[in-house]
């Protein structure tokens, strides 16, 4: 029985380093999509896609609106848009006000995904400096999904995962070196 339909990673620009360390060890036949929401300044999205792509055999692509979500793919939320998930498992983009000073907002994507994937959703919150992601993690838990965070003690900016640890019932706290194994184990063998 498949227990993960989507894996979503949220973080700030400083989390890029973590992603570059984790992606090379992710199984290239993974049975779910990995969706990445990173806070950053608008522009230079192609560079980010190329950089992440150079670290994995999985398809890495920046999301286009109404795109169908496929397994064994890594999707990157474009800068300056919120990312939502539709019931039919396609992506929607949204240009509305910033949330927690952020667009894309991690909360928006976590909350939207929680409604669609319910208990088959796993979300990982990385390093960051504001509260974005906390409300989203709560919603994921309410809907039966799993939430994990980067160990705040080893994060570049600890505020975001530290707040999550305080306010949300976390399923696992991971070191960077443990993340790829954790993700791979969620995959159907």
């Amino acid at each position, binding site marked *: 029985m498949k227990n993960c339909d989507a894996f979503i990673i949220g973080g700030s620009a400083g989390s890029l380093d973590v992603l570059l360390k984790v992606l090379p060890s992710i199984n290239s036949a993974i049975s779910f999509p990995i969706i990445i929401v990173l806070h950053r300044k608008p522009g230079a999205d192609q560079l980010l896609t190329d950089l992440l792509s150079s670290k994995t055999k999985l398809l890495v692509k920046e999301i*286009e*609106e*109404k795109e169908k979500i496929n397994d064994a793919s890594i999707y990157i939320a*474009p800068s300056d*848009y*919120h990312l*939502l*998930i*539709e*019931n039919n498992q396609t992506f*929607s*983009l*949204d*240009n*509305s*006000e910033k949330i927690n000073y952020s667009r894309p907002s991690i909360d*928006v994507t976590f*909350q*939207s995904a929680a*409604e669609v994937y*319910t208990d088959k959703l796993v979300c990982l919150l990385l390093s960051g400096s504001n509260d974005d992601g906390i409300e989203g993690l709560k919603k994921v838990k309410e*809907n039966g999904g799993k939430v994990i965070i980067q160990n705040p003690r080893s994060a570049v900016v600890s505020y975001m995962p530290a707040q999550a640890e305080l306010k949300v019932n976390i399923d696992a706290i991971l070191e960077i070196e443990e993340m790829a194994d954790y993700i791979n184990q969620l995959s159907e063998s």
Partner: protein
Amino acid sequence: MDSTEKSDEQIETLLADALELYGYDFSGYSRASLKRRILRLYALDNFVSFAEYRYKIRTDPGYFKRFLEQVTINVTEMFRDPGFYKVLRKEVLPKLGTYPFIRIWIAGCSTGEEAYSISILLKELNLLKKSLIYATDINSAVLEKAAQAMIPLNKMKQYSENYITAGGTENFSDYYSANYSLAKLNDDLKTKIIFSTHNLVSENSFNEFQLILCRNVIIYFDRPLQTKVFELFDNSLENLGYLALGSKETLEFSTISKKYKKLDSEKIWRKIT
């Protein structure tokens, strides 16, 4: 409101009310974003039950106006995506400048920032006098704001940077006067803009244009509605005219795409048959 499944049903109920009582058809809107906006307004206005929310929408046309304004998205900027405006300035508008008269349609203009940006470009290219900009939106409240041409002063720094990155050569602050916390755009920028309501979902073509801008509007529509709207644009665009979309939108999957050729760098298509 309630659990996911129940709230999905409740949202469909509200949308059915909007169509039945006010004639606004949201059936082709993407649900995830619309749902978030509807739930956000429910929380914002402190309703205690879905029944109360629904009753207010059904019985109070003034509140429905607020509902419409809040569930549709009206975020906009002057010279948003400066690279796009640079191509308009260097490539598209000079081509249109060879026509005796230029008609531009900005569909989904919200509070008018795009219309005024285009007006500035036309003015600097000495084309404003022979141009007419039709700026339309579904929502009359934002059009009232657009016509006032007042922008919070604290936004002008960003817009000024956008303007310069977009290839602007004048002094941006000459285009407005500061009035307490607001910037009032110069009246001459408004003389060639006609603000009017138009609903892309239910209304037809009303003129022929050489340039149609519809940026970050169709991301809120599902594919069938996008197709319908593209056909409306196609019927409203002269041969060799241009259609400009938002940076994450595409004409690629539409029925009209064969008639259009995309410019290299930006989301601008030219009608070629």
